[in-house]
């Protein structure tokens, strides 16, 4: 549980900001990341929550665009630096493990990189492990608050007028 609280605090401090109109969110061109960084973030989020036979994944839910837009307007410049640096850490690790940047690695090699980063997830220590936590939290938050996440993946049936409360009467 402390892990969750830390993560929630991190993302809250990390992603504070907005200047643009709501309509600008999810637009195609990245607002903060370079196109190459954005493509890598998109791939990372899809690796964390992929499309499966149940529902589309993070890419279809435009998770990277949401993270990018929040960072573009973040109050603290440090948050942007941390994410840019985080992507570099992923490339560095991929270089060490497979002699090539993350995006040039094979699907199996990418999974190996993420597996290494996720090794101590509940007790992250190295910068790569810490970044994985942040990346995963932001991805999960954006995905499960998206249209796809709520309606297709979780098949949520609420937020409507109900005739009757659900559940069991107490006897």
């Amino acid at each position: 549980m402390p892990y969750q609280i830390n993560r929630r605090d991190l993302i809250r401090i990390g992603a504070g900001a907005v200047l643009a109109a709501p309509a600008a969110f999810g637009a195609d061109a990245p607002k903060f990341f370079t196109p190459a960084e954005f493509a890598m973030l998109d791939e990372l989020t899809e690796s964390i929550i992929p499309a499966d036979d149940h529902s589309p994944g993070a890419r279809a839910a435009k998770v990277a665009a949401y993270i990018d837009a929040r960072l573009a307007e973040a109050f603290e410049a440090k948050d942007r630096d941390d994410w840019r640096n985080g992507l570099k850490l992923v490339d560095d690790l991929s270089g060490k493990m497979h002699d090539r940047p993350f995006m040039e690695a094979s699907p199996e090699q990418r999974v190996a990189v993420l597996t290494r980063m996720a090794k101590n997830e509940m007790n992250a220590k190295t910068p790569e492990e810490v970044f994985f936590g942040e990346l995963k939290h932001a991805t999960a938050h954006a995905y499960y608050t998206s249209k796809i996440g709520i309606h297709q993946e979780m098949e949520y049936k609420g937020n409507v007028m109900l005739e009757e409360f659900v559940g069991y009467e107490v006897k």
Partner: protein
Amino acid sequence: MSDEVDLKKTYDAIVVGSGAAGGMAAHVLTSHGMQVLMLEAGKKLNINKELKSMEWPYDHPRRGDMPPDSHPLSGSEYTIRQPPYAKGSPYKHVYSYVEDGNGSDYAKNIVVDEKDHPYTGTQYAWVRARCLGGKTNIWGRLALRLSDYDFKAASRDGYGEDWPISYADISPYYDKVDLYLGISGHKENLPQLPDSIFQRAVRLNPAEVKLRESLVKMGRVLTPYRAGVTTDGVKHNKYRVHCYGRGACDRRVGGCDIHAAFDSPTGLIYPALDTGNLTLRTNATVSEVTVDKDTGKASGVSFIDTDTGQAYTAKGRTVLLAASTLESARLMLLSKSSQYPNGIGNSSGHVGHNFCEHLMGPGVSGLDKELVGKPRTLDDGRPGSFYLPRFRNLTDRNPKFLRGYGFEGGSGTGMFPDNAFGTPGFGSAYKKTVRDYAGAFIGMGGFGEVLPRYENYVDLDPEVKDRWGVPVLRFQIKFGDNEKKMAADMADSAREMFEAAGIEVLNVSRDILTEGYSIHELGTARMGTDPKKSVVNQFQQSHDVKNLLVVDGSTHVSASCQNPTWTIMALCWRSCDHLADELKKGNV
């Protein structure tokens, strides 16, 4: 709806504050035909525009988070840092914690900006809502009665003071509150938690039924959340409709845009305005209760226009403080005069003292394995899930601590799968695990009675002032030994109850959250029979100043472990009936 105060007129009553207590005072006094002036320090908000109860996360640009220049204090900031919490913050606005990370943007205009409203002293999570209706716009809605286990607690265990009333005195007024506002719940016939006159109860889900059935064997009870929500409707009130189970109550900071959940504006103030006897002035920060030099009685109040800073004085035959527990004490301490050098109504020296509240933090979360992978139920359509009433120090006596605690709990499927953050791994397996387990979790957290102690107090800071130049409160409030021992027992008993029910325990939390976290601050102007040891009498009338009443949570003698709002309103109704009677008799 008049916003204009007639400064020449002497109102029958001036009510300071518009929350549960202020709204109730306005309702009862106007019903008696009295001319009432209500002064609220904050704005009148278009509350439905703030709450946007049905908005989907993806239709909000920041999925419910505040704008970038604004910062909601997180729970941990209250313990890491010292008040004033906004001091030195680079953010333009810093807000009280409001379930941080859970739709804070919807409450940003409801709670105060800490930059304008500092306080000093010991660490304290002080959540204030300055707007019409105050905290009732976002309250947790758990509406419980107190019993003689609370009112006569001192006689039972020797600690502190009894209340000057018993359950029999307040019971008819609880009934009135139930019928006028509506409350949902299930009859349990418990002596420590008397039943209300309930409307349709919320239902339980499978994990909750399992826990309820197991608890019966231990002689304990899990009851559907007793919500201050009208589930069958209140036909006499045109501003409210019954609950439709839409379920935004727990997803966000609270609030209900169809007003099935009680809030003071639609439940009490608008109907009071319709009588024609109520004058409402918002943006009016009361800074002092004024005194008639000849009689020593309260003559009215001074207030500052929140926007312009202009000062005014309004006249009243009686003054009722309902500014919230700590703000009402602050106002009494601010009202110094030659007659009342320690503050009005404070000859006892007890104003600001005998503070009490509820401690929070210890609790348990668990997994009902039978539900993993099963089709998820929809558990988001309820105004609350369950309540587990006090079981300690009723028939037995715990050797380690006095008084007791109850648990509030929840379980099942909401809109957001919280386990997405705690489930390890990534990829298809991770995604499927989140999906399969999302509806199988159950958790509960304790609310424990904090003993009132004279040493726990607030006073005025000699130097720091708020944005309007009014001295701020300085806290000297710390949990004591009884609270720590109770907290340890809360964690242990929570685990024990889950294990007995066959619920797999995932996490037991043992830490006590910062003082104030429960937002149930009580005491500081307690009622009693002895003017040397208490501030008001059983009708919340100042011992020193007969036409001054304190009708909010300030007058609680002890905190009980039951949530205070329903009791605040029942007491206020009783006191206002009494006041109207006394005025007729010419006794005030």
